[in-house]
């Protein structure tokens, strides 16, 4: 049994609207609590993580949020600049070359370059070291793009290896792919909801990741899980109140769907599926994130 805390790169994905960002934010909180220097990355998104944690949006600079926790919103323009600077070394060269209008319009057509620099930036943080050669980050969490775009995102190294002739881009793609498929480094978590279509989509995604991208999946997270509340012995006692009976029946259906979703995910994903109960509160903020983090403790693990 492995834990997320054993890995340095955590990738969180799922269909839009399943609670992917809240899950990633809760994980970041837990990692920081466990004493890990943690960086949480959003990828070219309308920023949600820092606000969820009760902070102002951070933008494209790595920004401290609280003890042991930093956040960044990776954006293509900034990531591109940094990527090129790493290769060309000199700011002046970058300006001369990449701020040339012709070059700018040309560079856009290198396929998946945008995804490459974003994924490149995220994986670079995993390898980033300080002057003494120690890793800067214990844990890098990526709130990755949702289902459809996630495949594109993590396939970038392979697409480039298939497309691009030997050269610097290809070398970077090789490094990235090696990191992504290394189970000792990377833990991929798929978040979903207890409903038929999101579960279908998650299972399809898992299959694509396994077969086409060769990306191992570490765990599933079933969000807004509804445990049973009304058992069959209770139902007949409600028969005098048809509308209450209807309410209870709805709840039974919800929890039955939760149970069957769990069974399908466990069978299809072949990895542990962790449950996050549905949280009832007027808004989703810090206390709610704490509750999610608590529910995910068996996945995240504890600091030794």
């Amino acid at each position, binding site marked *: 049994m492995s834990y997320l805390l054993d890995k340095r790169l955590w990738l969180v994905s799922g269909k839009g609207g399943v609670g992917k960002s809240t899950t990633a934010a809760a994980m970041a909180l837990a990692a920081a609590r466990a004493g890990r220097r943690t960086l949480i990355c959003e990828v070219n998104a309308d920023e949600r993580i820092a606000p969820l944690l009760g902070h102002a949006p951070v933008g494209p600079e790595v920004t401290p949020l609280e003890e042991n926790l930093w956040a960044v919103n990776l954006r293509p323009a900034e990531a591109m600049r940094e990527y090129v600077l790493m290769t*060309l070394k000199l700011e002046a060269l970058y300006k001369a070359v990449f701020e040339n209008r012709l070059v700018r319009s040309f560079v856009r*057509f290198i396929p998946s370059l945008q*995804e490459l620099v974003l994924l490149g930036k995220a994986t670079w943080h995993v390898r980033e070291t300080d002057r003494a050669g120690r890793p800067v980050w214990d844990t890098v969490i990526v709130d990755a793009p949702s289902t459809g775009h996630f495949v594109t995102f993590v396939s970038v190294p392979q697409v480039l290896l298939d497309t691009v002739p030997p050269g610097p881009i290809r070398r970077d793609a090789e490094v990235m792919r090696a990191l992504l498929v290394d189970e000792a480094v990377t833990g991929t978590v798929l978040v979903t909801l207890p409903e038929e279509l999101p579960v279908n989509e998650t299972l399809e995604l898992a299959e694509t990741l396994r077969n086409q991208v060769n990306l191992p999946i570490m765990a599933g997270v079933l969000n807004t899980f509804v445990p049973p509340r009304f058992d069959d012995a209770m139902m007949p006692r409600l028969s005098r109140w048809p*509308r209450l009976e209807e309410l209870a029946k709805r709840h039974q259906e*919800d929890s039955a769907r939760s149970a069957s979703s769990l069974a399908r995910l466990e069978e299809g994903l072949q990895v542990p599926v962790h449950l996050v109960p549905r949280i009832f509160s007027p808004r989703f903020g810090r206390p709610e994130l704490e509750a999610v983090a608590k529910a995910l403790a068996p996945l995240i693990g504890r600091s030794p």
Partner: protein
Amino acid sequence: MSNPEVLKEALAGLEVLVCVGPGGVGKTTVSASLALQASLVGRDAMVCTIDPARRLANSLGLKAFGNVETRIPDAIFEAAGLRPGAPLHAMMLDMKRSWDDLIGRTASPEVRDRIFANRFYKALSTALAGSQEYIAMEKLWELRRSRDSGLIVLDTPPTSHALDFLDAPDRLLAFMDNEAARFFLTPARRAGKVGVKLFSLGSSFVLKQLSRVAGAQTLEELGAFLGALSSLNEGFSERARAVKALLADEKTGFVLVTTPAAERLDELISFHAQLVRTGHRPVAVVVNRTHRMPDAELWLQAAALDDELRAAVERTLSEARLLAERDEAGIALLRQKVDTPLVIVPRFGSDVHDLSALAQTAAYLVGDRAP
């Protein structure tokens, strides 16, 4: 208050409905329900999706459908206790095939073969960001042209930035009409060739630096690819402009779809503003999966139950109340920020994934049922 009459009118009077909104709000379901409703009341309709996850096929009771129009068989209607008044078609876009078709229609056989053989082509047609959005729009235009009447409902892809697809024609125009390709290729063109000798300016300092980053061979092959593509420039530009015109046409309407949960609303509100600003016409905001408020009577009934049962029922009621209050707050915010009529669709007990469930959604969309 729900204003379903706006959708009823749109279904009768418009030719194209584009459903837009954040991912995971039931956009595909709403698209399919709208097309189904048109068919049920006797208007020929077609729903078109680019959804990579095959959700539409699922909800129409079909296993899958390729890049071709599939007519929903009467048997599927009958199984759901429904009777189509006019044919209902569905189509799911295959990205690669749509690009192949587009290139095939625009290019001479020789240029076409050169493009298909280039290794950058596959990346363009399947992986290049924004190409999905463009090909969806392009297909919409193609469909509109080939169908005399009837309604087309387009379910847009789940984009990370919901308006990507509105810029898609412009981005493609920029792509095709790109300065760099013209600059690099002009000498070759003049010599009567297309797409060779990208590096006739090979000693240029800028190009040398660029190739340090991208690799010289990459640039050369990419140059050849852009060269072949740019010979299609005229055909492409014309089409991209036609696509843009179609989106802004008075017979085209946008249906924004959302759930009332607060975290989805900011996105929707800015989305709506952008649509209006860019001269597009929002016809309705569908607020999907809205929780109903349990009425006071239920609390009175619960009070009469034995302790165990009462605790379980009251807990369920307070959860339902909380969700309904949260949704009411979301809807109030929407009303304040958006001047397009709202259409409220309640959350159903079960997933919407068959034709009768789509018909149920449709009934709320056009006001045959009240939320």
